[in-house]
């Protein structure tokens, strides 16, 4: 266990949860993708979500910034309940998201990618937004690429830009949907290192990933999804060494080959 992890384990769990999802359901037509998910996340917690393909992991974290609308149940993020007619942009400002396929804007430079949202949404003056963008790019280790276009960068570099872009809005929560699964093995580490640094700085993170090493090093909790619901909610080590659920055992042996 690392020092950051110990620190976090000591943080009080009695505070108001920053994310609270109660009995969340989601249907795609006839398909019942989320079937009553309950989860609450404390500020500063790092939660890793794993589960078989199609179990609803992406759908769930996408409901948290309302890229997907849930059909039933309640979700409260930082005191704002997500429902129709809410000011969505207010919630999305609180929640940053990093996608599997990066989704950088190919017509903008790296710097412009990072500075766009602060300028347009927060109305930050350009000079200030650029300065902050450069700081963030420095933090993810690619300041020298600031004036290139995304297509000129490697996958790992692109994903780090995507992280910087999300951080530029100073979110309280970061969502990651399989941030490393589109990357070549040698680039996975550079992205995971950035994410570890972020976790160390106290960011609240929900991470869908199958990187067990990352989960065991950084995550406070590990949540196992199956068929649209959470079937295990435990610590990474506990899950790794002693999975309770049959499906979890089967999944672990498939993912890790043990």
């Amino acid at each position: 266990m690392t020092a950051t992890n110990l620190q976090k384990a000591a943080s009080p769990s009695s505070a108001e949860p920053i994310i609270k999802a109660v009995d969340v359901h989601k249907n795609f037509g006839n398909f019942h993708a989320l079937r009553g998910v309950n989860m609450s996340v404390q500020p500063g917690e790092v939660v890793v979500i794993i589960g078989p393909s199609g179990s609803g992991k992406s759908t769930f974290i996408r409901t948290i910034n309302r890229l997907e609308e849930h059909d039933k149940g309640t979700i409260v993020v930082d005191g704002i309940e997500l429902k129709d007619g809410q000011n969505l942009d207010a919630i999305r400002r609180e929640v940053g998201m990093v996608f599997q396929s990066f989704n950088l804007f190919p017509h903008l430079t790296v710097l412009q990618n990072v500075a766009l949202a602060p300028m347009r949404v927060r109305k930050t003056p350009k000079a200030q937004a650029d300065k902050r963008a450069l700081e963030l790019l420095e933090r993810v280790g690619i300041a020298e690429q600031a004036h290139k276009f995304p297509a000129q960068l490697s996958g790992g570099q692109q994903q780090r830009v995507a992280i910087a872009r999300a951080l530029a809005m100073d979110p309280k929560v970061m969502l990651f949907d399989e941030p490393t699964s589109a990357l070549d093995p040698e680039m996975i580490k550079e992205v995971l290192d950035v994410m570890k640094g972020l976790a160390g700085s106290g960011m609240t993170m929900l991470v869908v990933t199958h990187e067990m090493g990352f989960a065991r090093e950084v995550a406070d909790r590990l949540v196992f999804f199956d068929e649209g619901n959470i079937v295990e909610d435990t610590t990474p080590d506990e899950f790794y060494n002693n999975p309770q659920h049959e499906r979890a055992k089967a999944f672990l042996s498939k993912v890790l080959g043990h």
Partner: protein
Amino acid sequence: MTVKPSVQPASTSALSWLSYLVPGLGQLLLGHTLLGVQFLATAALVWLIAWPLLQSGAAFSIVLALIAVVSLHLGAGLTAAADARRRLGAEQAHAAQNVYKRWSVIVALAVVVLIGGLLLKWIVTLPSWNEVQRNFLFLLIGRFRAEQFADQLWRLWGFAALALGTVAAFGMAQLKIRNGWIPLVIGAAVGIVLLFPTVSPQVSIGGLALSLILAILGILGAIPLGLLFGVGRTNTLPVIRGISVGYIELFRSLPFITVIFWFFIFVPYVLGEGTQFWAVVAALSLFTGAYVAEIVRAGIQALPSGQAEAARALGLSGTQTMLQVVLPQAVRNMIPPLVGQFISLFKDTSLVSIVGLIELAGAGRITANRLVTATFELYLTVALLYFVFAYLLSLLARRLEAPRAVR
């Protein structure tokens, strides 16, 4: 060479000049510079020899011409192959050589040369080209005569502005300087502002100038309409989507002629006399706008959905997402189909002559009816004028695309 210049009438020398021009230029267009030049020389020789004989009606002259074409073509092919070997290596050279050895190619080329030459001869020696020449100004600008509007002559600088803008955009594209659309738009805007009063019914500018003015005004109207309704069609609000779909489907389901008629009658009825010109512009814009809207929609939907999702996840509003992220990328996909649409708009202006605006096609028809004798020559000229401008537009578009494709 035993050709005595005195045997050839004036038109003949012009003809032989044209006849070697065509296949030679063809080769040049195909990128075979050396071959093109040789072909020009070949055809020149062939026609210099065969022409006087053909004129005297000797059948064997055709055979002679064929032999000359074939042998000289083969020679040219071998030279091209040698050239290719020097530049590209033996394998390609072999392939190049084989193409020119193929009989089908040789025969086809020989036939093209002969038929093309005869066709050109026929066209050039049509009797009434002088009539076309006499009425050419009418085809270009209709009844507009500068001397009646001597105080308005400066307005013709509008054409210069249009041309300058186009040339500047073209040049910038050639030099790979970005933002070539800026001089294009400025030139068009200045040109239209200057030329604007000359299109009033009293001044009655017509012919090619009117066709171009209508096309440009139609495009300027169609782009905002297309953007508005194309984006509207992708909106999540059913009302906005419904209105957009209604507009698009309505105008795409009507023949253009009915749209013109309807506007031509309806608009002056509501807005008063003297608005016929603008009625036609509105018809052109609305009709083309529906097609542009579909191009815009396709361009937007061709983008991966992750782009809009990423923008929304960052907190950008729907409008900001559209303006900052989606449209800038979609526009690049839209350029080729848009140009096709605008070429077809330019040609569609030929239909407005049915409501009495004398644009290029109308001017051609009026002149042909009046003269009776020069029908073929006139319509050929009109067709050529349409072709030249439509082709220029598509060339320009190709150049405008090229530098963007790089990154």
